[in-house]
């Protein structure tokens, strides 16, 4: 460990002692923050994984329907059927503070009152597979929104955990040992000085006594 480049004085010593105390306190706090973030992250990541596999399964199913619909209907008819949606999704974005990580919260709002009002076409000229695709997607939409929320939360928290972990490590392995070593160095230097003062005083005393009284 590298000793800090400071003068070995009492002033520096007391300054360093204060710094060491706050570094230790900061280290403890950051460690707690990291642990709690990690706990929350593990809960979220499990939900994220669950949601993602559900959403992926549902979209794959919808895609299968869509592929069939695309093969039985003309492409233009298919596109036209979906061209003018009746429904519109709007999102209200809130914010949640988890250990000072601000994660977004989404609230879904549909333009028309009925969330199931999704078929933007008459049933006569379209394949039933298209209905299947649209209804499968519509069923998974709430989970997709939640997935967007959770996935973002996971990303932001992963960043924050990484940052916090670095800070904890820097304090634990660099700053605190450096302070400790420098404090030790200054303490030794000061007591060394003290000893040398004492010995030189003794020496001087001897010399003075010798001169005035011829003592040995």
């Amino acid at each position, binding site marked *: 460990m590298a000793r800090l480049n400071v003068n070995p004085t009492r002033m520096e010593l007391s300054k360093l002692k204060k710094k060491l105390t706050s570094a230790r306190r900061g280290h403890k706090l950051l460690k707690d923050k990291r642990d709690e973030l*990690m706990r929350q*992250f593990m809960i979220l*990541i499990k939900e*994220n*994984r669950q949601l*993602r*596999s559900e*959403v*992926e399964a549902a*979209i*794959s199913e*919808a*895609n299968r329907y*869509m*592929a069939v619909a*695309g093969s039985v209907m003309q492409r233009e008819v*298919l*596109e036209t059927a*979906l*061209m003018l*949606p*009746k*429904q*519109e*999704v*709007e*999102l*209200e*974005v809130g*914010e949640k503070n988890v250990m000072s990580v*601000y*994660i*977004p919260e*989404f609230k879904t*709002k*549909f*333009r028309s009152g009925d969330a199931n009002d*999704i*078929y*933007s076409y008459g049933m006569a000229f379209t394949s039933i597979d298209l209905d299947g*695709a*649209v209804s499968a*997607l*519509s069923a998974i*939409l709430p989970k*997709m*929104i939640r*997935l*967007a*929320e959770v*996935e*973002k939360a*996971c*990303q*932001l928290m*992963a*960043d924050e*955990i*990484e940052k916090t*972990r670095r800070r904890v490590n820097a304090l634990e392995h660099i700053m605190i040992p450096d302070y400790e070593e420098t404090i030790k160095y200054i303490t030794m230097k000061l007591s060394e000085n003290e000893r040398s003062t004492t010995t030189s005083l003794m020496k001087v005393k001897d010399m003075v006594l010798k001169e005035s009284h011829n003592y040995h």
Partner: protein
Amino acid sequence: MYKAAVIGDSASVSGFAALGLSVFRETEPEKINKLISRLAANDFAVIYITEPAAAMVRDTINKYRSSKLPSIVLIPAIEGNTGDGMRALHEAVEKAVGSDILN
């Protein structure tokens, strides 16, 4: 009020139009790049993008990883699931924990 968008090839994303999401049928990297920047600046809180489309614009997507909005979510395209979405999840775990402890 924020909106949600879907980006990808026509066959994969058309179905979402019926649900009222804003659908963008793009398959060229430069256009998708521009589109994502435009959407991010224009009140789109969530962007769903198909995995093949996302693979072309990975840098742009990574750019928005650490910002609060928009949330960019990978979804499987019509050709099937490439597993990129799950992989991103594992990467997040690796970043946070130091090793991939899922599974």
